[in-house]
């Protein structure tokens, strides 16, 4: 009981700190008017605000909210197809459909659980690089309230009719697209496309360990 209470008040304190920090972050971002920068700052703030309220939400609720942010902010058709690589061409229509559906569930589960342990982070989009491919790379930083080295996150964004969309995220130089593509290819090589679909489904349906705080 007392553990519960202290956890709550701790969460309240962390929440207050997060609000304060994200207000500061927003101010800092407003200094630059690159629309890509503003877009990423908004996306990061949204994701953090969705994940931080651990006291009053279940992991499932946070995951559902996180999903909305991701589906809205990412160009999922491009991401999912790129990640399947050359196997997209060999996949049948039903397999593609199933893959697209399960890919969103998978990617949401992966990143919701990876970031769910966070709380009170300061997310700041800091600069924009015009990539030679025509995309923009928005360089951001996550500063953890407990201290330690800030984490560098690069978002590759592409202009769409409806605004900017994220097509890749790199954490400390490690690309999400690249990593998943190689990982998926390894599974398809050994088990075929249906094997990959089965493994992805198993991951999505598995209970979340350690996410329920």
């Amino acid at each position, binding site marked *: 009981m007392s553990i519960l209470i202290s956890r709550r008040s701790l969460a309240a304190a962390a929440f207050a700190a997060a609000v304060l920090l994200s207000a500061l972050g927003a101010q800092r971002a407003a200094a630059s008017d690159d629309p890509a920068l503003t877009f990423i700052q908004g996306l990061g703030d949204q994701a953090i605000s969705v994940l931080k309220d651990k006291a009053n939400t279940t992991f499932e609720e946070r995951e559902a909210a996180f999903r909305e942010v991701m*589906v809205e902010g990412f160009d*999922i*058709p*491009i991401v999912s*197809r*790129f990640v399947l*690589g*050359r196997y997209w061409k060999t996949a049948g*229509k039903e397999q*593609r*459909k199933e893959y*697209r*559906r399960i890919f969103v569930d998978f990617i949401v*589960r*992966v990143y919701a*659980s*990876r970031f769910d*342990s966070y709380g009170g982070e300061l997310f700041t989009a800091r600069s924009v*690089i015009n*990539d*030679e*491919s025509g*995309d923009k*790379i928005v*360089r951001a930083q996550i500063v*953890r309230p*407990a*201290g*330690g*080295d800030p984490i*560098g996150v*690069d978002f*590759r964004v592409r202009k769409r009719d409806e605004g900017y969309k994220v*097509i*890749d995220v*790199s954490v*400390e*130089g*490690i*690309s999400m*697209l*690249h*990593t998943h*593509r*190689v*990982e*998926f*290819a*390894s*599974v398809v*090589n050994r088990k075929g496309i249906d094997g*990959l679909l089965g*493994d*992805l489904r198993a*991951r999505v349906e*598995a209970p979340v*360990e*350690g996410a329920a705080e």
Partner: protein
Amino acid sequence: MSESLPRQPAPRRAIGPFAAPQRLLAILLLAGALLCIAADGRAQDPFDANDPLEDFNRAMFEVNQTIDRFLLKPIAEAYVFILPNEVRHRIANVLGNLAEPLNLVNNAAQGKFERAGSTLMRFTVNTTIGVGGIFDVAAEWGYERTPEDFGQTLATWGVGGEPFLMLPLLGPTNPRDAAAFGVDWFADPFGYLLPAEAGLARGVTSGVSQRAQYLEELETLESTSVDFYAALRELYRQYRATEIRDGAPPPAMEIPDFDFDEDFDEDFDEE
């Protein structure tokens, strides 16, 4: 829990107690043999795994996983449980300070003289005013840690990092980095200056401290990947490449716009 520790340089002494000279020699010989494989085994598709030793590597991965499950991870967990964050932070600082001479040499060998100078400054200030490296005073003065090892030096000299190699206890590596690990090992002045017991203690602590920093990360990676080995292999490669580039963003990767109408249907966004 453990996220506030500064990142440490590569775990040079992580296998301290296990690395008898014979074993090191074996690693070097193996590395030499593998460099020959590296010469012809290059894949054109950057997304191909290019892992000619995959069967061997996966077997070693299983061995490492077992050692980790029953030995390394429990010790790392106990380490985190027993010692407060602050103490672990200080220990990581001391270990990091002991790595500075190698950082200095490797920075200089790569022609990064400003960073080498900064490293010298760090080592001097932190060893004295920072009480043997317990306090990272130099960082507060603006001298940031710039970790370099001989593997990175070889990379800047043009030695490639393929093929991927999973070694018992050493973990994910490649022939270049495994051989360079041995070179760093012999070049490290503290290997000679510290008494044997202290060297051993440093090796063990370094391994545990290093492992403790990735407790949560590795657990989440394992529970969210469809192929843990392949995910780790890719993470290692990209992490290493980032270290070699000193944190600069990777070269542009072409991500084409696909024509979806041609082979795709509209019912994707629903649900």
